[in-house]
């Protein structure tokens, strides 16, 4: 009998276990470790700030990538540089930009997509900020920064791709995606101008050192001036640019901007956020980036500096004695064209811009009188670009390629001087004074102001900083100046939209690309 009761209790136990399965819903709630739901985020100032940082993150792509770094891509497309590198298929995105075989299939898709990631992070912030309980003044400033960032991203997009979707609110349903259409360029410009005008009001004039890198009133104003110029609103452009340039070119403006005394000081990488720097993209050698997190978002190094370095650069004994710079072994991209080299020859700015590698090497790597040895890049001319050149003491991390803390200028005062002079039609005393100030600082004699003089000056002053291709297209010189690279007028004024954007969408490709 005892056995039976044991059996019965087992039956009861079994049935209980087997059927007692009703209350499992709670167990089936997934528990996350550090996983934050959108509905539980954007609740306070700290979270708003991290959302703001995410919106800034994509600025870093400018030089924080390889073939999809706009700095490298735009330089490659200009008449100042060949892509270079190890061979004709090394970083193919740069090669096809350089030799104008660029097509929807070979443009690096992230050139496009990274900007839109930036846009999306601005859009989510603009949607969330109004409801976040936080200090009102900070909220106003965050909002202004996000609008300025969105304007910055769209400005690059519209200049590079011309016909782009203008997305101003977060996309929350997948069903919305295929319905999106491209906007007219003038509508994009109108939105950029609106965003910037709204931002300028609420941005701070100056930043404490702990905030350097964020948008200021001056940066947004300079950007707006530039946008107006591209939008062919010359008077508005001149007015905005005049604000940052100040009343007397060469003297500090009311925003505190002033040309650096020496051109070469601009390229001392320790001079971050100097008086001439209006908007600057910040990098650091502290993020320990490695290939595992390369381009993930927590890699904060300037990678373009590695790509632009001379291949296998080594100083010989003579070179060491001659105290030649201790450049890193780079990957040989951004080979200076003979055209740029010849244009700059004799200009004091040459020494900060171009390194005569071939001359230092001699006849070849075995030349007993050679100061250096190095390996030729693809398209080697013997001239290499050094404004952002890294030296071995810049290597601070065990991955020597991805962690250069060298900042890049996006807008600096010499640029806005020349833009204002251009907006003024390239005539008049003010335009002359602006041009003179740039030339004076460079250490060259004044020339009479004219649009051509301004364009020529821009090339000398701003070589390799990512402006040249935009300048050529804006001023209508692209067809003539880029013919030697295979530029096709009526086609290459805009880059092709990456073909992956056409999969199941309403997108229309730019003219003459298939």
């Amino acid at each position, binding site marked *: 009998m005892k056995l039976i009761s044991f059996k019965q209790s087992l039956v009861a136990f079994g049935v209980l276990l087997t059927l007692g399965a009703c209350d499992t819903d709670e167990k089936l709630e997934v528990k996350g470790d550090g996983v934050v739901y959108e509905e539980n985020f954007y609740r306070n100032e700290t979270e708003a700030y991290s959302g703001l940082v995410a919106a800034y993150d994509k600025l870093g792509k400018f030089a924080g990538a390889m073939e999809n770094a706009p700095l490298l891509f735009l330089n490659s497309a200009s008449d100042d540089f060949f892509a270079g590198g190890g061979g004709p298929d090394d970083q193919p995105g740069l090669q096809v930009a350089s030799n104008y075989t660029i097509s929807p299939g070979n443009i690096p898709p992230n050139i496009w997509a990274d900007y839109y990631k930036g846009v999306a992070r601005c859009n989510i912030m603009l949607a969330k900020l109004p409801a976040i309980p936080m200090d009102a003044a900070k909220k106003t400033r965050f909002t202004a920064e996000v609008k300025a960032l969105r304007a910055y991203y769209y400005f690059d997009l519209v200049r590079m791709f011309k016909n782009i979707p203008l997305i101003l609110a977060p996309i929350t349903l997948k069903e919305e995606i295929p319905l999106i259409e491209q906007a007219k360029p003038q509508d994009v410009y109108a939105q950029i101008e609106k965003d910037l005008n709204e931002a300028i009001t609420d941005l701070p004039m100056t930043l404490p050192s702990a905030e350097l890198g964020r948008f200021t009133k001056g940066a947004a104003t300079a950007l707006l001036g530039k946008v107006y110029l591209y939008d062919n609103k010359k008077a508005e452009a001149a007015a905005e640019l005049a604000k940052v340039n100040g009343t007397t070119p060469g003297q500090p403006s009311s925003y505190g901007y002033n040309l650096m005394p020496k051109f070469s000081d601009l390229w001392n990488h320790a001079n971050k956020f100097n008086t001439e720097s209006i908007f600057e993209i910040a990098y650091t050698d502290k993020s320990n980036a490695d290939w595992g997190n390369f381009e993930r978002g927590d890699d904060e190094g300037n990678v373009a500096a590695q790509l632009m370095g001379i291949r296998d650069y080594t100083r010989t004994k003579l070179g060491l004695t001659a105290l030649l710079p201790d450049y890193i072994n780079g990957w040989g991209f951004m080979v200076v064209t003979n055209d740029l080299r010849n244009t700059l020859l004799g200009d004091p700015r040459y020494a900060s811009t171009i390194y005569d590698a071939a001359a230092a090497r001699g006849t070849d790597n075995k030349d007993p009188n050679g100061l250096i040895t190095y390996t030729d890049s693809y398209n080697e001319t013997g001239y290499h670009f050094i404004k952002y050149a890294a030296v071995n003491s810049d290597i601070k991390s*065990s991955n020597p390629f991805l962690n250069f803390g060298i900042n890049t200028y996006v807008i600096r005062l010499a640029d806005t001087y020349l833009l204002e002079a251009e907006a003024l039609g390239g005539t008049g005393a003010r335009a002359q004074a602006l041009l003179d100030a740039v030339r004076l600082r460079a250490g060259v004699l004044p020339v009479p102001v004219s649009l051509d003089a301004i364009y020529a000056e821009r090339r000398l002053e701003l070589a390799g900083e990512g402006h040249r291709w935009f300048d050529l297209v804006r001023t209508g010189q692209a067809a003539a100046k880029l013919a030697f690279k295979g530029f096709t007028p009526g086609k290459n004024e805009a880059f092709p939209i990456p073909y992956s954007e056409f999969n199941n969408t309403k997108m229309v490709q730019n003219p003459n690309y298939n």
Partner: protein
Amino acid sequence: MKLTKLLMFCISSLLFSVIAIAQDVTVNGTINDESGLPVPGATISVKGTNKATASDFDGKFQISVPSNGTLTVTFVGYVTVQEAVNGRTKLDIKLRPESQNLNEVVVVGYGTQKKSVVTGSISSVKAKDLESLPITRVEQALQGRVSGVSIAANAGQPGSASTIRIRGFTTLNNNDPLWVVDGVIVDNGGIGYLNQSDIESIEVLKDGASGAIYGSRAAAGVILVTTKKGKAGKISVSYTGYAGTSQAAKKIDLLDASQYVTILNEAYVNGGKPAPFAPTTDKGTNWQDVIFNDHAQRYSHELSFSGGNDTSTFYMSFGLTDQEGIITTDISNYNRKNIRLNSNHKLGKYIKIGQTLGYSNEKTIGIGNTNDEFGGPLSSAINLDPLTPVLVGPEAAVAGSPYVNNNALRDPNGNYYGISTNVTQETSNPLAYTQTRLGNNDFSENFVGNIFIEAEILPGLKFRSTAGAKLAYYGSDNFTPVYYLNGATKKDVNELFRSYKKSYSWNWENTLNYAKKFGDHNFSVLVGKGTYVDNITSGNDITYRGVPATTHDDASFNVDIPIADKIANAYNAQALEHRVESLFGRLNYDYKEKYIFTGIIRRDGSTRFGPNHKYGTFPSVSLGWVPSKEGFWKENDVVGNLKIRGGYGVTGNDSSPDFLYISTVGIQRNYTIGGNIANGQSTNAIANPDLKWEETKQANIGFETTLFRDFNLTVDLFNKKTEGILMPVPVPGYVGATGKTYANLADMENKGIDVELGYRKKIGALNLSVNGNFSYIKNEITYLDKGTNFLAGDETVQSSAYEINRTQVGQAYNSFYGFKTNGIFQTQADVDNYKNAAGKVIQPGAKPGDFRWQDLDGDGSIGSNDRTFLGTSLPKFTYGFTLNLDYKGFDMLVFGQGAGGNMIYQGLRRLDITNANYQTEVLGRWTGPGSTNSYPRVTTNDTNKNFTNPSDFNLEKGDFFRFKTIQLGYSFPKEWIESISLQKVRLYVTGENLWTITKYTGYDPEIGGPTTAGMNNVQGVDRGYYPQAKSYMLGVNLQF
């Protein structure tokens, strides 16, 4: 077979020797099998009594029996014989083999079933099929042995996993089958802990009706592994061991130095540049000779003990396997140690308890990149120029040479490892590369076990509770010295790295099983509840930079270095656990084993879905009919034991990432503000609250029969349709999402046939058996979400301008996609005359010697719209055969296996390195009008993208047949060994991968899944695949 007989004999003698007491007539008899050989260990019982005995080694027995009584003779695998004594005292009884497998028991999930009443499509591999085969990982046991299962090695690196597909690709997600080892669910990658000789049987549940008992996790098929249990009786000790040597089965033909110079100079001249290399007649360096080891060693020892008594049985074993890789052996090695303890016990009459526990310790030394064009010794050996010497003297360190770099590596004699100045980037001297990884290893320790209690509550009603768990510790231990391999591959600060991870999963199942027989009606009912929790993972890693050491052995964490050089990371799995809660039930019914019914229903809830679709229900039904048991069936020698069966079942899949149904915020979107890194966060991809279970509906119809008594035939036809495949929506860049949005986007269908045919014959003393299997499968995408015309693949090869695969309705999943060549322009006139309908010259920039691309859209130019489908990456058919022969003491095994109908993307050459070496096929390049119409000119300026456009030029047929194993053995006669108390001594030689028949030009046509995590299911892309070794081994089996 012999072994089984011996074992049966031991057990039977133990059980019955006491019972045979003389009475009435004493009958002396002999039991022989159909060929006249004695059958030891057969049970001879007196009908209607509990009196029984067993036949001895010579098949003889003696039993006392009433002179009018009847003897019943039973032996596993043979038809039971009833023999009336009729006063005789001498009986010769002949046993006829039961048409095979009729009494075989099949593991079906939460229980076993007699094979005769199984209605699903289940294939088995038994221990005896695997004995003394050189199997390092358990999945290799299935390769080529069961129909409908395709298995391809992921790499020849020892210890590498294989890609297993049961009846093709079921989904666009995780297609790995569910592994259940003694009731414990073990993830596919973690199955390597099993020791081959511990396996009793492996069952593959292929159809939906069988798999449905595992519901939401069974869509890609289920593999049930049962480990060995002890048997009551004398303790049995057995040892199996082998040692052998491996080498590359094939080397590819690369250009030697003189050919290299010729081709490269020609390419430069064609590219409009001066020829850079001075002509030479040297052969130069063959880098393959540098990396391949023709004498890689391997060995294995396995020792097991089993035994027990009426209440307790045990099985325990120890295994040790060590295998050196054939490529850069110093950094390619696998070592595994196993311990297993299984036991079963009876607690009184009604309660059984038992446990299984396996422990493994694995250490893998890997070459780093495999099947990756960007670095790794194999890719380097293929691409390095033959001009660079392996070693150069110390005098090479002159100004201007790469050897002046302080970190250039040297051998013990002070010579530098040659550094190529022609081929750089990730490609480097493999010997130097080896020096940078010496001693680095990955380790893992696995504990997998379970414990069960089974109680017979009422006659026929059993309650069983099983708790199982898997605990794994794994990580890696690496030291990277400073090195300079070339300008792009260097390390200026050394690094000592250690990672240590833990993962844990557990499950608990409770079942009630009631079996009852009402006359000829057999019922059994199973109900159960299960909880399955996995993905409990955590870990950390530590990096010390700049430690005072130059080798792995000297490097230590016990050093003082600046705090800034100590980097630590820790993490947990994002979802702390993935949990599935299940209720399931099964009803089996048969009438005289003639009409058979099985019904299964399972309901699963998963943490991976939102409140809208948390639960899924997975039913199945299957029916069987055995016409050969019908009254109208006439015994015949042509068709016997015919069973016709069919079933339909629904299974599911929740193997998508977690948190997809709700919008989440991600980290690591940082920016440098004020010189410091500010941490940024933003929303991830668009969430999809309507995400639901992916369902696989599979219909299966088949039959099993014997033909002409000696043949066994099983044929299954199936149609497997997966609906609502969970997959990332291909979101255009303008959405700006970080991460992927998932939806139930696609449907896919697999139709096919599985055939297994066996033949077994005894001809005198010769035993012969041949088993073959063949499967054909057709995969097709049948539906994609509205507005989605196709899914662009995510696989690219090197600098190819386009992705190489695409998924589209009407095509096989992830088919190769690219341009079609149409010969080569022989003359400028050919170029000028190649026009579209409107008269536009299609390739105005092309030169003679360039490919003529087909202008498929007819627009007069070559662009992305001119791409098309170029073939499937999935084998359409797989097959295998096993031949077993034994004659007296000799035995022989021949096992071969093949696949075909698929294409392989041959991407061995680095296209972005101008000076990379070529395979000798380039010698047949275009050199002038009429020279060739299939291999384009070489040029450094390939503007026509002859090589970089993904095209049919890059694709090759993947068909192959391989003699996988050939084994010859000899067992010593028992008279010789009995005196030293041995039961069995067998010596054997084995050859593995001796011969492969294929037209493929790479190393190895057997290419499994991608090795790069995150690459989706694109098989058949050869980026420098670690080929499988050819091995010769000598082995021994001993049994005490």
